[in-house]
């Protein structure tokens, strides 16, 4: 089938007066690791629930791998593996039995069980009851279950929720390797940009139900305002000289820091300082910290 892995058009969902998802048009191409970002309550889980056909939508359309979710739900979801919010397991069953349940439901051969257990490194623990698993093991079993049947698309809702740093790194590595190893596309949600920046090729940023940005990480950085650091001999005098055009300039050690600056601005600032007779020893344009971009996009204060 042709078409992007995920394509939504003008997707909306209300809960009473609240608009949980507002006119969302999302596009995830095949082979991408798409970081789906937003603060708590942004509407990530609601979007994911609609993508998986768990809840109705009030407006809009969803296509998964080119299949319309309304008219072709079974085919659309046949090659999708998912974890929604928590890796919900049958705690009375062993890890292996949990995977067997899903194999039977999806008509997948039992041979898959050993393959996915190896991927998440749970083969030794597979005979233990899931109720005895640690949170990290449950999360890994959830991922193993999502990987059954070699899905074309993985939808993971906050898969590192509640894990320790080692566990987070492990899951992150698994996700980062997945497109190359299994040819899957991945949509992974998170409320922290720093968590997905090492693995995501593309990101979408949501807040209050709206999609504020979607594109590559470098696009996100490029479009965000940069910061200019100027090293010079007399910061106080320099600040006065720039006060008319750049009132935001701040003294920082032996220099000035100017927020919200692009390259053209930098040249103008340099010229102005030299004209004022101030010796500039260095000019650096610094990209903003990713977390700051995220916070300024979503309007939250750090």
């Amino acid at each position: 089938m042709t078409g992007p892995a995920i394509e939504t058009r003008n997707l909306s969902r209300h809960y009473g007066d609240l608009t949980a998802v507002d006119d969302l048009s999302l596009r995830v191409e095949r082979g991408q690791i798409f970081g789906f970002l937003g603060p708590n309550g942004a509407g990530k889980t609601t979007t994911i629930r609609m993508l998986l056909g768990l809840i109705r939508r009030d407006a809009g359309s969803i296509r998964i791998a080119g299949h319309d979710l309304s008219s072709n739900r079974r085919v659309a979801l046949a090659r999708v593996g998912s974890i929604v919010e928590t890796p919900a397991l049958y705690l009375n069953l062993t890890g292996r039995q949990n995977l067997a349940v899903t194999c039977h439901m999806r008509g997948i051969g039992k041979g898959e069980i050993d393959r996915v257990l190896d991927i998440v490194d749970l083969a030794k623990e597979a005979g233990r009851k899931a109720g005895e698993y640690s949170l990290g093991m449950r999360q890994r079993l959830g991922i193993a279950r999502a990987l059954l049947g070699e899905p074309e698309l993985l939808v993971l809702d906050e898969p590192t929720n509640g894990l320790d740093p080692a566990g987070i790194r492990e899951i992150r590595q698994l996700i980062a390797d997945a497109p190359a190893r299994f040819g899957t596309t991945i949509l992974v949600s998170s409320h922290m940009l720093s968590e997905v920046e090492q693995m995501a090729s593309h990101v979408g940023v949501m807040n209050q139900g709206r999609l504020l940005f979607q594109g590559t990480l470098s696009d996100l950085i490029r479009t965000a305002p940069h910061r200019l650091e100027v090293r010079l001999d007399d910061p106080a005098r320099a600040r006065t000289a720039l006060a008319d055009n750049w009132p935001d300039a701040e003294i920082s050690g032996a220099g000035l820091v100017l927020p919200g600056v692009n390259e053209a601005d930098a040249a103008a600032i340099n010229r102005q300082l030299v004209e004022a007779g101030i010796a500039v020893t260095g000019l650096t344009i610094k990209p903003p910290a990713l977390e700051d971009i995220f916070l300024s996009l979503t309007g939250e204060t750090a």
Partner: protein
Amino acid sequence: MIGVIIADLIKLRGSLVLLVMAVPPVMMTVLGVLVIISGNSAGDWPRTALSGTAIWAYFLLPMTATGLTALLAQLEHSTGVWSHILATGTPRWQIFLSKGLIAFALMGATSLLVGLAIFASGHVGGILVSTEALEGVPPYGQVVAILAKMWVASLLVTAFQLAIALRFSSFALPVSVGIGGTFVAVAATSSQWGLVFPWLMPVNVLASEPERALLAIAIGGIGGLAALAAMIVWLSRRDWD
């Protein structure tokens, strides 16, 4: 569809569902033996066996239907796995139909165990205290037929309890409804309402008027299948989150 049913059967492993199924036959065996050896039985096989089926129909059957369906639903609710199984793309009607078929089958299996318990208690009681041994011939065929009719008549209450248990994540709600229904049933036995009260259908199988017994089987059986169909439609249409 077969895959869905097999998956549902795997989930029963190590769960309390099987324990709930064991309670009625064990209780009836112990109770039956005690009644006989204490000299309080009706004295003969037919009447003693029949009173056994009455205890099942009045009290243990509706309570078993309640507990069994509630636990069956809790397997999914307690771990919040609805999202997972519904996101597999498996048609929803198959998922809910499988639950219904399993609930019906487990009620049937429990009925069989209850039949065994009725005869086991009669024989064991007679062996323990030979002077109190039941007279006459054990009415095997009759009891099996009655239990089978009761099972058919119980489909309605089973489907109803299952629907509530699946729809609401609470465990207490379906259990309260089931206990309430069972007690109201006792009061409603002789009233007009008793003819259509779901929890009473199995009891009505024992009615002396054959029409009333037949009506119970018809309402319980056909109503049970209709209720299951309605449940499937109802649950398939709602949001699951």
